[in-house]
């Protein structure tokens, strides 16, 4: 259960801070794929937590 708190923190933190990210994405000159890279990192983290959970349960 403890590992899920990381995800809770990230999701709600991300929710509150996402407007700042949004304004950053819209800045001219920023790489167009940047939002997707951040999203991808979050998915990788979630995948890692899922693997960790499986190990914990075993």
């Amino acid at each position, binding site marked *: 259960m403890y590992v899920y708190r990381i995800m809770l923190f990230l999701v709600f933190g991300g929710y509150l801070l*996402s407007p700042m990210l949004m304004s950053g994405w819209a800045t001219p000159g920023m790489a*167009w794929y940047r939002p997707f890279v951040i*999203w991808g990192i979050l998915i990788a983290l*979630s995948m890692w937590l899922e693997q960790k*959970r499986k190990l914990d349960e075993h």
Partner: protein
Amino acid sequence: MSTSLAGVFTLGAGYLLLLFLCALAVERGWVPTRLVRHPAVYSLALGVYASAWAVYGSVELATEVGYGYLAYYLGVAGAFLLVPVLLVPIQRMTRTYQLASLADLFAFRFRSRWVGTLITLVTLLSVMPLLALQVQTMGDAVHLLTGAVSPALLALGFCVLIGLLAILFGARHTHLQARHDTLLAVIALESLVKLAVMLALGGVALYGVFDGPTDLQSWLNGPGLAAQSSTLRLDPGQWRTLLLLFFAAAFLMPHMFHMTFTETPSRRALLQASWSLPLYLLLMALPVPLIVWATQRLGVDASALGSAYLAFALSANPWVDALVFIAGLAAASGTMIIIAIALAGMVLNHLVLVARPPDNQPDLYRWLLWLRRALIVAVILGGWLFYRTVGIKHDLTTLGLTSFVGMAQCLPGMLAVLYWPGANRKGMLCGLAAGCAVWLLGLWLPLLTDQAPLVFIPPGLEALEDEPAWYAITLVALAANIIIFITVSLITRTSEGERAAAEACSVDAVIRPKRLPLAARTGEDFKPYLAEALGREVAEREVDNALAALGLSPHDGRPYALRRLRDRIQANLSGLMGPSVAQDIVDRFLPYQYDGLAPTDDIHFVESRLEAYRSRLTGLARELDGLRRYHRRTLTQLPIGLCAFGDDSELLMWNDALAQLSGIEGDSVIGARRDSLPAPWAELLGRIFDEPGSYLYKQAVTLESGLRYLTLHKATLAAEQGERGGTVILIEDHSEMKWLEDELVHSERLASIGRLAAGVAHEIGNPITGISSLAQNLRYDTDDPQLLETADQIQQLTERVSRIVGSLVSFAHGGRHVEQTRLTAVELYQVGEEALHLIRLARSGQDVVYSNLCPMGLRVQGDAQRLVQVLVNLIGNARDASQPGDEIVIEAKPQGSGVELSVSDAGHGIDASVRDHLFEPFSTTKPPGEGTGLGLPLVYSIIREHHGHIQIDSPPPGQQHGTRIAMWLPRPQEDGEDHDEPDSDR
């Protein structure tokens, strides 16, 4: 774009036929089950969220607000990243209580059919714009491809086909909770098609219009800046609100709820979706801005084409258009199928069955199935009708947001279901009604009337007046909803049933059902009771299904088992007819009986739930659970039998030692009444209950293992702080102690006889000595050969009598000097002869042949009398096992530094099951009363005192039967130093 109508219809119908073929392949088993049930298929099926909005609406939104379109994907991705803490608890509830929809869940939690009805109505109203959006994209796509002025009829044709597929995939079984492998596979295929087409379109944009990512980046930093300048920027509030709406949609929209919870193949699959669905959505979202930027570079006039349909302008190649159409059709059809299936179930359970209960319906299953099918068609046609009359006048974003804002009104209720047990139905109904009123007036009704939205801006929030209507209404509606919900819940009373349901649903609570008796006495009794509501056939089937699921016997009369059976039947009926109707039926026809006492918690059930929840506990709760488990283990593994009863005489605990003693497993009796326990326990435990004292000493009880003597101790638990007490009973097996006591009495009696025999021997000895002396004198007094012979015979006979008496006295004294024995060299042949001599004195075994084959002169270091005792025991046992005419042989031979002495017989042998316990006290193979079970332990003890060892072969190697007991004894340390002959008189 001048494809014919027939061509488009053929394309669309061909795609739908592909779905049908996929369903057929799964149904017939042409696709391996392992593949169909793979978690990846479930993750893809969750892609049903990406409706026509994802293919067209996102492009429209991206054109207007740039990256703001991502809210549609990120909201849902956020919800799925929280699968373990948000979605798994909901899934657990829906699975446990067979809840197939949001309305089922709310009706179950708030214990009100009106809650279910209201949620169904809100869902129905919310979903209509979303359904209209799906149909509209089909109509618009047909219009763009064919130029047809009125594509509605073709859209209707697709709707009919989709309706048929929905019936085929989702309404073939009577039970809404039945898993549909076919449905999952088909929706997964649709998701794959959508994804493949979107990625292909992204590829066309990136490499067909641009020259790759670098060129795209150059264009965005250069000429593209002008095109981007017209894009609006969502302010932080709007962005967060959009995220919240789509976050809520992940588990509130009927198609998402159905796919996420009702169709879940396993918890593992749901947990895997925590990253696989966000990954899928990432891939779906990636091509959207590429399409927008590509069409901007191509100079496509978005206002003329409709910004939602820019993908059609990506290429002049008709195959690209066909791909776009197929992607839209795949997205729309998947969403419509699942919405129709889910909504049909909700309408059936919470509108139709509430208005017309199915009391004693002749063929209930068939009746429900056809109702569901009709409702599926009605929902899809309702969507088409809404599109024709209302949707056609509005853009996709307006329709979609109206739908999502409406469903978001259920969010406070859902969070309360999970995290606030104090919420009650009055608060939920008032809050939901207020929020929905704001939404209806502000967004939904203006769709119909084309009037400006009616937005109530409360004082202090005037800043919202200049904001978009959807944003202001979302905030006002949710704020009103939440404030009224909390306020009313706090000031009104929560019913007992609602409180129990809240505990069942709450993430941090464990359901604590009460221990109440039922009117029915066995599972079989449920059938006539239920038949009054469901008809005989359906009642029998439901009861049998529930019994089979729980693994119970129809004749199990344990109150605990009957309560579980009632719960299971309620859950199964809930899956069939919704929780409101199911609860109504079990409450009316399977009522509890109140005995006047306040009911207490069903401790056994609570414990079993705690065991299941263990992995979810953290912090203090986990520590406390650890303590609970420790105490529980202490009681269950106590080496003394223990059972505990509640005040109502229901058995709450039956520990391992008692299970072993009684031969009755705890699971088969826990929850039973004391008086219904198997014999002799009901009577025995009744005795201690009726006993005024706290114990019963050595009660004779016949168990499977034979006659046992049990001592029972009783402790009464006093009721404290509203909790009812109970009785704890300790059961000690005192059988061995009783046998030992009996044996001691017997031994004492034998010892008395021995003392008497020694006295008698002494008394006999004197006259015998006199007789011997007289015979000796007689030899000196006469020369008569006849008299001399007589005197010799008298002397021989008196010597024989003296030897017999001496042996008796010697044997009687033999067991006393156990310690400090002085070991000497002992002639084994003499020991054997002495033992045989004693054995022959007994009357039994006269017809058995005894042979002493010990070689003369073979000696061991030992105590002659105790070795005689060993042989007497062994030969006695051999004699008892032998048949008339059998031979018992005593042999001895040198072996290493010692001598092997053995006793062999040809008797029936020793059973393998007792062979390992022969040297334990009281282990005997003889019938009760014939053997004490002390002989061989004594033999073992004596041989060990002689530093030897003993071995039993039964049968001996190479023989079919018989027994050979071999003892190894050491030779005299200095053979020849002490050559005392074994003295029979000692």
